[in-house]
Structure formats: C-alpha cells, structure tokens
C-alpha cells in the first residue's frame, strides 16, 4: 500500500523509479551499517581483552558479518530489480 502511495507521490514530484530504488537502498543500508559497526567494534574489544582467543573471535566475527551483510546485499539486488 505504502509503495503505491510512494509511487504516486513520486509521479507527482518527478522522482523516478530509479531515484526511489536508490533512496530505498540507502535506507536499507543504514541498519546493516550500524550492525556491522557494532559487531566489529565489540569483536575488536574482545580481541584486545583476550588476544589468545583472537582466532575464534575472528571466525565468529566474519560469520556474524556475513549474516548482517546479507540484508544490505538483498537491498542492493532489489535496487536492480526495481529499476
């Protein structure tokens, strides 16, 4: 429903589908951006506190990044589908 409203508003304002797609991707990247920042920050802290567990923390960190990043990447794909 809100997509229709957005599309109507866009048609009136002259904003194109491409513009909306880009804007939506930008919005969709905020969450994963915060997530990855927090995740890596906490991992660095853990590694600094216990350097001997750095290997394990690093593996888990990459795993976490992979899951969080998927959201941003789905947004990226949707950007191309929506154009």
């Amino acid at each position, binding site marked *: 429903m809100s997509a229709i409203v957005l599309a109507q508003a866009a048609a009136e304002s002259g904003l194109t589908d491409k513009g909306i797609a880009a804007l939506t991707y930008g919005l969709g990247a905020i969450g994963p951006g915060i997530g990855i920042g927090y995740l890596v920050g906490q991992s660095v802290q853990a590694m600094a506190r216990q350097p001997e567990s750095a290997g394990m923390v690093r*593996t888990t960190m*990459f*795993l976490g*990044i*992979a899951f969080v990043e*998927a959201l941003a990447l789905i947004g990226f*794909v949707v950007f191309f589908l929506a154009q």
Partner: protein
Amino acid sequence: MFATEFPPLSHIVNWPGFAGTEGEWYEFNKIVLVYVFAILMIGAFFFFGSRKKALVPKGTQNLAEMAVDFIEEGIVMDTMGEPGKKYSPFLLSLFLFVWFTNIFGIIPVIQMPASARIALPMFLALLAYFVYHISGMIEHGPLKYFKHALVPPGVPAALLLLVVPIEFISKFLVQPFSHTVRLFANMLAGHILLVTFGVLTAALIGTGVLATFVGVLPLIALIFFTLFEVLVAFLQAYVFTLLTGVYINAAISHDH
C-alpha cells in the same frame, strides 16, 4: 555534467560468445573461460604442489600445504570439529574455485568476476545445499533428520505450530537464497564500483587540462578499489566456505 553515460548493467556483465552457438548451453564466452582457467589453476596448483612430497616443503608444495591447513584449521575445526574432517576436500575445492573465479575480477584483460553472474553462486549454493541436507539425512536417517532440522530441542509444544514453519522457511528456502545472494551481490557490487571509476577516469583524463587534473582523483580511487577487491575476493570465498561448513555442522551435529 560529464559527456559520458554510465553503461547499462547488461553491457558490463553480458559477454558475447566467441565459440559455439549463441544462446545454446555450449556457448563459450568470457565467463566460461574464467571457469576453465579456475579449474586449470586448481589442477596445476595441486599437481605441482604434490609432485615431490618433500618432508620440508618449499615453493608450490608449501603453498598447497598452507591452503589445506587453512581450510582444516581455520574452517573445518572451527565450525565442525573432528567429525567434519571428511568434508575438508569438498570445502577446499569450493574455497579455491570461488576464490579463483572471484580474483578474475581484477586480472587485467579479463576483469570480470565469474561469480558476478548469478549462475555460478546459485549452482555452488545448490551444491552445498544438497551436500549438507543429504549428509544430514545419512547421519540421522531421512525422517529423523527433518525432526532434527525443524524441531529445536526444548521448545514447548504450543509454540511448535509457529516455530516449525519458521524453521522450514529459514532452513530450506531462505538459507540457499541468502548463500547465493551474498556472494553474487558482493562481486557484482565490486565489479560495478570498478566500472564506475574506470568510466569516470576515461571520461576525464585527456579531455582538457582541468579535466585531466580532476581525473586523477577517480584514478587514485580506481587503484585503491582494485586493491580492495583483492581483499573482497578472498573474504567472500572464505565466508562462502565458512557458511557451508556451518550449515554442514548444523545438519550433522547431534543435540545434547
């Protein structure tokens, strides 16, 4: 502002075939060339790495042992532990194949990561999908495996109505999709990034004194992002293999 248009997406990821019939499955284009190169590179790597089998490894043998060690210690032992050792040949070939097809994104003349076309990531993710579900079924038996996969231990019976469909969607539908998209979108994004700065540099440099001066900036960015892509190519291959390991572990592990 710039006298250039960004090329449409189909121009930077579709390649004309140079052998075979167009549109047929045996059409041979740049992407297929990258696959062939990657396979030949892996073959040559292990052929030369295992030719002498010296006690103190050096040269190619050293590299090959490092690769095996990296997969066994860094991925298999971290995600699955001892029972996962039998999957390390699969994970090693998966890792090297993804890495080599990724790295062609920055190798001059070719400059096209084969994994930026969804066919390859989708095929590899489906391969992994069948490997982990089938090894889970072998480990637990077909019916018990579905119970193991869909019913988490310690959930009250009333919640199962909600939990089982969610687990089914996430494990059997979303998991292979996100596994595919993660590799595909990362490599496509990197490729587009390089094309953007390449187009910008080509449009600016040599069109005037001021434009050439400004054009140095995207050139620096292009060099920087090319180096960044080296890292991304490795990291995505690592993440793809790591996730395959995690999924295999989830399928074959026993509840405690």
